[in-house]
């Protein structure tokens, strides 16, 4: 089998080529599964999240986002979102949620920035997150590493929802800028 270029893969997906979906699966499924498993800690549900992400890729193949973002980032985010939605839908709390809840209330729990740092892999991601102002770092931590919605963060921090969304916006753009600087 030839290794298709990302642009070629997108192009074939847009044209509705089912083999392109299989190629995308071969290339990205294992990474997607690792991401879903990290959120759900359950093999079967992780597989369901991966399936949902690829179904979503197929459904949205002719939209602009897949072409703009590229299949890799698109699948990472959509898989993760699918897994988080499953987590939220679950009637019983997973052990991971319980750990997060404990961390919220336990005064001996690590600082949110430490949790963030542990979750992000590379040093330059860690330093970029650590360099964010505290209130922006907190939004990233609550949203990305504790799976809270913007509304939940607003409620938890007693901050207007619009302010929380703005902080998330600025934080992610600053991260993008810092990560770009680090890479060049």
């Amino acid at each position: 089998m030839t290794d298709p270029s990302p642009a070629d893969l997108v192009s074939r997906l847009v044209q509705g080529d089912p083999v392109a979906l299989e190629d995308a699966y071969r290339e990205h499924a294992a990474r997607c599964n690792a991401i879903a498993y990290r959120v759900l800690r359950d093999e079967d549900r992780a597989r369901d999240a991966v399936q949902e992400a690829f179904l979503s890729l197929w459904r949205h193949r002719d939209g602009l986002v897949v072409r703009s973002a590229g299949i890799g980032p698109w699948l990472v985010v959509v898989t993760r979102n699918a897994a988080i939605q499953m987590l939220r839908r679950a009637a019983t709390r997973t052990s991971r949620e319980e750990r997060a809840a404990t961390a919220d209330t336990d005064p001996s729990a690590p600082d949110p920035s430490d949790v963030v740092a542990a979750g992000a892999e590379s040093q330059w991601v860690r330093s970029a997150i650590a360099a964010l102002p505290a209130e922006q770092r907190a939004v990233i931590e609550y949203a990305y590493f504790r799976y809270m919605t913007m509304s939940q963060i607003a409620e938890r921090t007693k901050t207007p929802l619009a302010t929380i969304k703005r902080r998330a916006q600025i934080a992610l753009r600053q991260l993008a800028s810092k990560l770009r600087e680090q890479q060049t």
Partner: protein
Amino acid sequence: MISHPHEDIEAFALGALDELEARRVLAHANSCPTCSILLADAMSTAAKLEPAGERPLAAPIAMGAIAARPTAGARDPVASFVRWASAFGAVAAIFALLIWNVNLRSNTLTVPVAALVHSHFEHHALHGGAGSAKVIQAIDGHWLYLVADGLLPRTAYRLWEISAGSPHIVGTMRTDSSGRGTGYWEQTPTKLSGFVLTPSDADTTSPRALRWP
């Protein structure tokens, strides 16, 4: 009039929207050039927060079965409505751009959404100066779409393209009160080596310029 969910773009990428909100954002961005680029940027950054690593699936999923399923448009009335509403909004936006006297190099104006949906494109991030900007360029080079944010409010900006080592003005756009602006131009395909965005009173060497590469 369709409103852009700019404030929810990053929240989507962070997984911090509920299911319905997330669906609305994705459906809108799928047919809105501006939001698709903003969402692509946010997704790219959020994806970098994820640790690398793979975990093979114990039982592979049959992709053939997925590809055989009906498409979202037939199953998701919210997505379908937002897509049509977004397309309508985009058409309205183009007329607004015309009324606001955005400079167009070509006399023939095609709705960008249609151009984007039916052609392949690449996008370039412009850096430097204040704010951020992206140029979406048709692979065959016959149109350019500019989306910018964080620029000086209510200010005219020029987009320059670099070809054969020299800058040439593509066109001018004006930012709104929050420093955002978009522009769309058609042109004869040219081999380009870069783009520069400057306030209209500055040239391409200005420290206020944003550049790619």
